């Protein structure tokens, strides 16, 4: 909580400094006599400058949010950060689109030039405006492609590729900021602040997205050890490496992995660890869901692996109560399977409700049976198996109440397909489980 407040305050302070600088620039540097109160064109220009500066600021924030920056990620969790990234992206678009409109309108009013003539003048005669305009157009295109219903038409890989030109867009606009941003050209302190912001984001991105994974790869020499069929359409990939004990990870966390093999190396994908933290290997249990995951069974032992992470705050570390309920749907079992050992070692009362379509879809059936001998209560629920002697159907509110009568006393860890999670969150709420006792992670990033 304190950490969260700290990060929020840091972000707000960053924006606050911008407003403070613009404010003092208005009175210190801008036209003598401070005519901003009466000069509408100056008001428009000022609004345009603020839109640009805040827009660039939230754009940098946007890069940090999704940059796997560990000190932020470990406070919020990558799934929540990626949602924040989505909304923040809208702020970036709105602010940066307002900037040219306000500034052009301000100048056209001041100098009595028609709007579009002024716009053309900017593009033709002002240094770095054209490149910035191209950058903004790129940004708008990426933004439009990110709108929900359009985004869903793309494969994950294509989607990922679409985002890369964003870095070009940012680069195209840098000159514009330093050459014609009057707050930057006229105030050395502010210019240093701006350099600092860019430097700060660049260092974080370089380290967490590039250098750290490479360093980990060199230090631990991660390699695929073996591939095992786990259940229908589910394959476990065992990864070994040097000094794995020093690769600090918590059960419930996930890795973003890139297999360095033909047909694999271009894409990095997030997968939950499905083994306890103390295991001397890393295990990812992957269900065939698309092109990439379909190729997993063809991985060859010995393949090098580049790993980003571990990421995520969906771990038993957050557990405060004696009694715990784990709810898994399908392949959502992986992080919960990893957590089970630790929760049992802590002598907690742990129940697992595990929903699947069919019996042959149950992942880790034997491991779960072994865990139940150590005290884990496992209830399988099958929806497409009419002859199954155990629990049938889906996890409704009624089913949860019946199977776990003391659910309101438990902390709940939930992982499964989005629709199922939605339904269960509602049921839990109806069953008086306080929100703060429910932990879940969205699969899709």
């Amino acid at each position, binding site marked *: 909580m304190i950490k969260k407040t700290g990060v929020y305050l840091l972000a707000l302070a960053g924006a606050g400094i911008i407003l403070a600088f613009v404010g003092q620039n208005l009175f210190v*540097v*801008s*036209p*003598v*006599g401070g*005519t901003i109160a*009466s*000069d*509408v*064109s100056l*008001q*428009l*220009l000022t*609004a345009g400058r603020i839109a640009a500066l805040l827009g660039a600021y939230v754009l940098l924030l946007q890069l940090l949010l999704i940059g796997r920056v560990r000190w932020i990620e470990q406070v919020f969790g990558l799934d929540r950060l990626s949602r924040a990234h989505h*909304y923040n992206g*809208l*702020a970036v678009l*709105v602010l940066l689109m*307002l900037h040219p*409109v*306000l500034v052009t*309108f301000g100048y056209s*009013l*001041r*100098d*009595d030039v028609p709007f579009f003539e002024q716009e053309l003048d900017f593009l033709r*005669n*002002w*240094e770095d405006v054209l490149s910035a305009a191209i950058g903004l157009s790129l940004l708008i295109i990426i933004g439009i492609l990110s709108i929900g219903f359009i985004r869903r038409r793309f494969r994950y890989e294509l989607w990922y590729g679409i985002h890369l030109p964003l870095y070009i867009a940012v680069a195209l606009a840098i000159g514009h900021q330093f*050459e*014609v941003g*009057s707050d930057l*050209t*006229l105030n050395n302190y502010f210019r240093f602040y701006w350099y600092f912001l860019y430097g700060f984001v660049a260092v974080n991105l370089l380290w967490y997205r590039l250098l750290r994974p490479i360093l980990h790869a060199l230090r631990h020499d991660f390699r695929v050890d073996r591939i095992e069929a786990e259940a229908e359409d589910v394959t476990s990939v065992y990864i070994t490496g040097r000094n794995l004990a020093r690769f600090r990870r918590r059960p419930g966390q996930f890795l973003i992995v890139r297999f360095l093999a033909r047909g694999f190396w271009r894409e990095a994908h997030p997968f939950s660890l499905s083994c306890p933290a103390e295991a001397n290997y890393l295990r990812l249990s992957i269900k065939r869901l698309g092109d990439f995951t379909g190729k997993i069974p063809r991985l060859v032992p010995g393949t090098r692996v580049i790993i980003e992470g571990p990421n995520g705050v969906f771990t038993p570390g957050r557990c405060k109560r004696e009694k715990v309920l784990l709810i898994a749907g399908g392949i959502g079992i992986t992080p919960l399977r990893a957590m089970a050992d630790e929760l049992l070692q802590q002598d907690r009362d742990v129940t697992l409700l595990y929903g699947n379509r069919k019996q042959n879809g149950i992942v880790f059936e034997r491991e779960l049976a072994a865990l139940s001998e150590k005290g884990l209560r496992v209830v399988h629920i099958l929806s497409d198996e009419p002859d199954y002697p155990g629990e049938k159907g889906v996890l409704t509110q009624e089913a949860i109440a019946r199977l776990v009568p003391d659910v309101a006393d438990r902390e709940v860890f939930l992982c499964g397909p989005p629709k199922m999670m939605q339904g269960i969150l509602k049921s839990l709420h109806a069953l008086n489980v306080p929100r703060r006792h429910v932990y879940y992670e969205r699969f899709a990033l």
Partner: protein
Amino acid sequence: MKKSYLFGAMCVAALMIIGWAGNALAQETAKSTLDNLQAAFNGESNAKAKYEAFAIKADEEGYKQVASLFRAAAHAEGIHAASHGKVITDMGATPKADVGKPEVKSTKENLEAALKGESYERDTMYPAFIKQAEADKNQKASRTFNWAISAETEHAKLYQEALGNLDAWKAGPKEFIVCQKCGYTTAKTDIKQCPVCSNPRSKMDAIK
């Protein structure tokens, strides 16, 4: 999310309406501001002629850098005259100036006269004009006066500097940067943008 788009659109619309309303108000102007504009137009036109003559004299006396400064200042005053003139035309009147023959003395005396003129404009004339223009809500007049006063302040500083160490202002010529929009004048040749009107460096002239 739709809300935030809507909010953004409303903000833009609101700003546009304020802009048009302000513009319309500015059209209705008091006669006194027009008189002030004519006076300023006349003053700037005379200053331009005067500085051009001073520049020739400074060259003759071997004060090459002072000559450059006078040329830059003359260029700036010309820009101010044009800027004032445009506002006068927009108000439906015709700019009028009565340019007399400048009285040229020694470069030192010319600098002193120039400094005196600029100081008067900076301290007395333009502040009164700006006050009147603001009272009349004439944004265009207020702006052109503000631009002029900013430049005159710089001119006065530069003249003062030259007077303080006249011998050092011989070897030249020296380059000055003059903003094409507002006439801001500076010796800082690495300037990236006009601090007064935000014009980019590409729209500022280098005068020697």
